């Protein structure tokens, strides 16, 4: 009986293995878009470069391990340049799905260039690896074809800032808060979240200035003077990198010193801001401490130090800044790699299952990967920090939450 069983098993394996090998594709096609020019190039190119770096690395190792075929399979990247044009992006996403027939669909960076992909991916039943599109309108319980890879959803991202103001602010003498934000989905949602956290807390904080302005704003002189008149103890600026650059430059020109100034991109794209504002202009600015400075323990992929070394080796010219977005692109790649290593087929709903199975388990250089039920990223909240200038170099000092606390904040700004 045992002999017969072994014989049947052997025969079965003999028949099945070649069948698996024959079914395995010669390459895994990853389709994505990037913006080499236009308004979103500065956030798109680092993300794209991170993804490309991983693909080159995996192909040099013989490909990515795909559990569905129990072998390593080389990756073919199909990438189109949408030039920050949303109409172009929509037809290119469709091209990736209908003509190139990619196995894995990865969105461009940012909500505006991710938006055209959401309905198309869902219509074609393609799972969308949404890299940094935090738009709340993308996620719904009835759409299983999307998940956010790297950024926390904007509704919870600014919680550490609000918590700092609520819990530590009164002791530091922070009573009046000014909020200035750019009216786009990314920063508008963060402003709404900060406002809500503060109001719901019942903390003795008064929002004395709350103003949304067009994202295209390049001169903040009037706003700076208006904010100064309200004598705030803390100024929270929520804008894109160009907004932060313009604001910080104008603050330097006007000669105002707010007691506390928060800016998103001082931390997320420090190299870019330092180039444009100078190290002195960033000193004492409060910001998100980027993963590049946190060195999260990893259970998959390179550590931050290894990734930075690989980045510098691959992109030695420094044309694309190494920062938060560079990490986001590589994080997406790691989620893809890990998903392929657990998915039992390349069916898109199986990919969905595989991605969601990583929630809370996968720890990358971007922190813990965690998803809510709709696919929003909730894994790692970026701590609040403050930039210090030491020996001419910028350094992040972690401020909040306290378990990650390195030092007390410099408040008020000298």
């Amino acid at each position: 009986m045992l002999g017969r069983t072994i014989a049947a098993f052997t025969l079965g394996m003999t028949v099945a293995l070649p069948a698996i090998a024959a079914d395995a594709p010669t390459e895994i096609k990853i389709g994505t878009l990037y913006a080499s020019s236009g308004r979103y190039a500065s956030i798109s190119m680092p993300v794209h470069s991170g993804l490309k770096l991983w693909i080159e690395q995996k192909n040099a190792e013989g490909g990515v391990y795909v559990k569905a075929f129990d072998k390593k399979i080389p990756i073919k990247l199909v990438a189109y340049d949408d030039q920050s044009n949303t109409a172009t992006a929509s037809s290119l996403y469709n091209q990736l799905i209908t003509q190139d027939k990619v196995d894995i669909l990865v969105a461009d960076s940012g909500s505006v260039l991710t938006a055209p992909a959401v309905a198309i991916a869902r219509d074609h039943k393609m799972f969308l690896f949404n890299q940094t599109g935090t738009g709340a309108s993308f996620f719904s319980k009835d759409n299983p074809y999307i998940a956010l890879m790297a950024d926390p959803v904007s509704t919870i991202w600014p919680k550490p800032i609000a918590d700092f103001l609520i819990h530590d602010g009164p002791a530091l003498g922070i009573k009046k808060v000014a909020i200035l934000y750019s009216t786009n989905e990314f920063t508008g949602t963060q402003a709404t979240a900060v406002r809500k956290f503060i109001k719901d807390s019942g903390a003795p904080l008064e929002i004395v200035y709350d103003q949304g302005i067009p994202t295209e704003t390049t001169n903040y002189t009037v706003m700076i003077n208006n904010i100064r008149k309200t004598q705030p103890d803390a100024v929270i600026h929520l804008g894109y990198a160009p907004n932060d650059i313009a604001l910080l430059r104008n603050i330097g020109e006007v000669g105002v010193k707010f007691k506390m100034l928060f800016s998103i991109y001082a931390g997320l794209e420090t190299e870019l801001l330092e180039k444009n504002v100078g190290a002195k202009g960033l000193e004492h600015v409060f910001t998100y401490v980027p993963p590049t400075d946190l060195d999260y323990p990893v259970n998959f992929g390179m550590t931050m130090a290894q990734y930075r070394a690989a980045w510098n080796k691959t992109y030695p010219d420094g044309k694309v800044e190494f920062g938060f977005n560079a990490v986001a692109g590589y994080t997406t790649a790691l989620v893809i790699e890990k998903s392929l290593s657990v998915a039992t087929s390349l069916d898109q709903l199986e990919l969905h299952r595989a991605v969601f199975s990583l929630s809370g388990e996968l720890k990358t250089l971007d922190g813990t990967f965690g998803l809510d039920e709709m696919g929003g990223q909730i894994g790692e909240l970026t701590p609040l920090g403050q930039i210090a200038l030491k020996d001419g170099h910028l350094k992040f000092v972690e401020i909040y939450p306290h378990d990650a606390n390195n030092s007390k904040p410099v408040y008020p700004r000298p």
Partner: protein
Amino acid sequence: MRHLLLIVLPLLVIFALLPGVYQNHLLLFNFVIFLVLAQGVNIIYGFTGYLPFGYVGFFGAGAYGFAITVMHYHASAPMAVLVAGAVGVALGLFLSPLLRLSGAYFAIANMAAALAVLHFVANPALEDITRGPYGVSLTGTFNPTLAYAAALIVLALTMGIVVFLKNSSFGLALQAVREDPVSASMAGVNVVRMRVIAWLASALVAGLAGGVYAWYVSVFFPDNVFSSDFSIFAIVFALFGGVATITGPIIGVVALYGVYNLIGFTTPQYFQLIYGLLIMVLVLFLPAGLVSLATRRGWRVP
């Protein structure tokens, strides 16, 4: 009638059949949208001489007209597209005083007006109505097939308007106004009325196109539907083919948007170089558009 049969009908038949043989329907849809927008530019620029750099304002307003009608009034998508057209016309009426300006002054004022509409729609204070900067999701009405069919109907309407302008005394009067408004007025043409009608017709088709686009795309932000790229592309395509004709903008869209996508799909790294050189060559050697190749030889171009 001849133009309808020989130009408009084949164009519509081709775009109605193409989805059966080419799967990237969204690309075909974008072709149709740009055909509508280029012809919309043709109506206002080709026949009156007003260059609408802010043409996207009507398109975006139409898209948000569609979205608001669907979100707040739970109207059907076809009804919302009609509302989108009405919103385009209403905005056109509101902005009609701009027609007092001319040349670069009109172009700049029109662009500023489009930006103003964008920031009005994206204002967080209007979140309850427009969803402000946070974007809309209209997945309930999402139906690519019907949206494509609706785009073809809007294209048919737009082409009908252009054919009418090309063949009617009204269109002739408009061109007279474009060439010399004082002489046209002396000849009994109501200059203001003529211009406003052309302006509103142009706004109507852009509003309808915006509505259909919102129907197809279904998830978008203000920046998506008010992107100045729509204005620039529509103007470039119309000029490339040749304005004040029926076929010029069609040739412009098919050739230039075709090349645009061909380069984008095959050699995206050389995109700007090739596309930029192509436009430079045309501006230098064919400033009146591709149709001027024929008109220079004395051939009549419809």
